[in-house]
């Protein structure tokens, strides 16, 4: 076994080992496992496994790094956010067990070298994460859990037709073999790629099969919402990207992405609840990344990766801040929260930075990602889509930041920070995209 294969294997085994501590110290074991996985994901950048059971390239590395980072942040945040007192739907230990299994299923989907097993991994993410939504067991969370299970499962099942057609066309499901055989443009492959867009698109948040997304994000506990938004959707997007590589149907993907951005921006504009608003913002960002990938242009793909990694931290910061606000105010209603900046300065700072980050404000990494994607759209002659996307990105920017400003400024309410750990995690997560933006500027300066 090569060192690279060992690292990929350990990435899957370590959270599994943490799950063994179910009856004793699983909270601590989860944080330790997530920390070890974070180190392993960094090592994977230099020590990659050879093509075999795993298929890891630098694109995969970025997704693996994103997954382990948000897994670590959510594990730490959960230490204070989740307790047996408020986790009435699940026992605290079961919550941590599922968080670990959720991380394993995402890491498996991202690394495995087989389209069929990728599908199995994506379905496993639904199994491991569904019960996490009903951690607080409200009537709404039960309904959201059910909608998540039935809509996503029905959609992802549709994607299995695409797997069958790929197997029919190539006689194998090995990702590296199929991709190395070059672009294959036959009727069945085109159908397979198109079906994958709708099937996996259900999990990514492609319009009109996105309907589970705002419900699950708004009703799940904040650390789980952060994992959904920050890494679950990108993992599904990664699987779709690997299928898209077989036969890139650019115009179909770009038009679907554009329509989804229009829908997300319109829905986002009239949301009265901040967690739902951030959920629609995720839909908008995921579809912009989908467009970046669909251009199949190196600039567009680089933009999509920049956007995804920056968005994962920004959105995690937004959901952690939302969790702090919810704990302190007891409401998810934008109109009922005012003057946070005076009483909750750290959470306010995190919320402001993360909302600026998710809406693509310079100098956050998301801004540079968006610019690269928009530039790539022009390069591939997707000008009508470019104009539509720009208009609705502005729309989404105004919608998010107006609502967040209303919550932060104004006369102070009777709120206070929920301890130190939760605001600190929110602040750290929301600051990372700034560092990514700075990194981009340094690299850009060095190249030019």
């Amino acid at each position: 076994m090569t060192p690279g294969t060992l690292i990929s294997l350990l990435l899957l085994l370590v959270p599994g080992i943490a799950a063994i501590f179910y009856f004793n110290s699983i909270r601590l074991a989860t944080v330790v496992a997530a920390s070890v996985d974070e180190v392993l994901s960094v090592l994977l950048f230099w020590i990659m496994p050879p093509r075999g059971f795993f298929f890891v390239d630098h694109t995969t590395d970025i997704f693996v790094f994103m997954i382990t980072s948000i897994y670590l942040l959510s594990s730490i945040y959960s230490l204070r956010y989740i307790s047996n007192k408020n986790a009435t739907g699940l026992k605290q230990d079961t919550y941590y067990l599922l968080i670990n299994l959720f991380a394993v299923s995402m890491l498996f989907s991202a690394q495995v070298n087989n389209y069929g097993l990728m599908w199995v991994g994506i379905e496993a993410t639904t199994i491991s994460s569904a019960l996490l939504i009903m951690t607080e067991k409200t009537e709404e969370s039960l309904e959201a859990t059910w909608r998540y299970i039935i809509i996503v499962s029905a959609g992802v099942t549709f994607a299995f037709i695409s797997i069958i057609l790929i197997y029919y066309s190539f006689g194998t499901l090995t990702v590296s073999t199929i991709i190395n055989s070059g672009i294959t443009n036959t009727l069945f492959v085109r159908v397979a790629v198109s079906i994958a867009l709708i099937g996996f698109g259900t999990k990514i948040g492609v319009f009109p099969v996105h309907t589970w997304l705002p419900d699950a994000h708004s009703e799940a506990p904040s650390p789980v919402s952060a994992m959904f938004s920050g890494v679950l959707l990108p993992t599904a997007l990664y699987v779709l990207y690997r299928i898209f590589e077989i036969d890139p149907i650019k115009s179909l993907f770009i038009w679907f992405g554009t329509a989804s951005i229009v829908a997300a921006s319109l829905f986002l504009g009239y949301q009265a609840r901040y967690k739902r608003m951030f959920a629609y913002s995720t839909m908008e960002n995921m579809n912009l990344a989908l467009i970046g990938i669909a251009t199949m242009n190196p600039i567009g793909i680089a933009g999509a990766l920049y956007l995804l990694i920056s968005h994962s931290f920004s959105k995690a910061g937004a959901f952690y801040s939302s969790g702090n606000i919810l704990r302190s105010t007891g409401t998810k209603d934008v109109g009922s929260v005012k003057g946070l900046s005076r009483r909750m300065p750290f959470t306010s700072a995190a919320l402001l930075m993360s909302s600026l980050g998710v809406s693509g404000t310079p100098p956050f990494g998301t801004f540079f990602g968006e610019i690269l994607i928009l530039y790539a759209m022009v390069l591939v002659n997707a000008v009508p889509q470019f104009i539509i996307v720009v208009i609705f990105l502005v729309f989404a920017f105004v919608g998010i930041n107006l609502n967040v400003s209303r919550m932060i400024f104004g006369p102070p309410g009777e709120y206070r920070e929920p301890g130190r750990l939760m605001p600190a995690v929110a602040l750290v997560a929301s600051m990372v995209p700034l560092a990514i933006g700075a990194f981009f500027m340094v690299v850009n300066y060095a190249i030019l």
Partner: protein
Amino acid sequence: MIYDGIVYLISASILVSAFYIQGQRYIMSMIRGQLVQSILIAAASFLLAYLENSLDLLILGALILILRGILITYMLETRMPRRKSYVFEEGVNVPYLFLVDLVFIVIAVFIIYSIIFSTLVPISQPGNSSTLLFPLLLFFQGIFLITSRRSTYTQIVGYVEEENGLVLLAIFLLPVPIIIEASVFLDVLALVVISSVITVEKSTHERMEELRG
């Protein structure tokens, strides 16, 4: 030739079971309908295993019988309230749903089939792709059952039916490697287990103000 006839007979029976489930208001009857459907799909797999001398199809048939037929039916039945024969879904207009089903789903499937799937060459019956119509119809029947009903049980049965459609498609077209097929079965089983947790807490699904927009 006689075996072709048997394959068609089993396929048609599977479709009849799908329409039977669609026409039910009693939950217990739907679950039993799903049991019959799974047994028929297992029978199709066993028959093709015999015809093609395929161990994979034999294992697949056994998996369908054990995991879909027995385990899923058992789990759904044990989650039912005690007087289970009386549990039925209220407010379902069966004739209307049948009409919608026939007008939209069946016609749509025939169009999809004639455009795309009619040119596929099934491994089981080279030169005859018409058997692929049955899994497609079953698949969309499952989706229609999920979207047209509000009971948790019915939606689970719809999901299993949708999955059955895919299994049948793989059996007729080209069975995917057994390790993947087995993983798919276990995934579906786990999803049904998790779904059955929800059935205890929430048996029907209505619009909620908090989840609007």
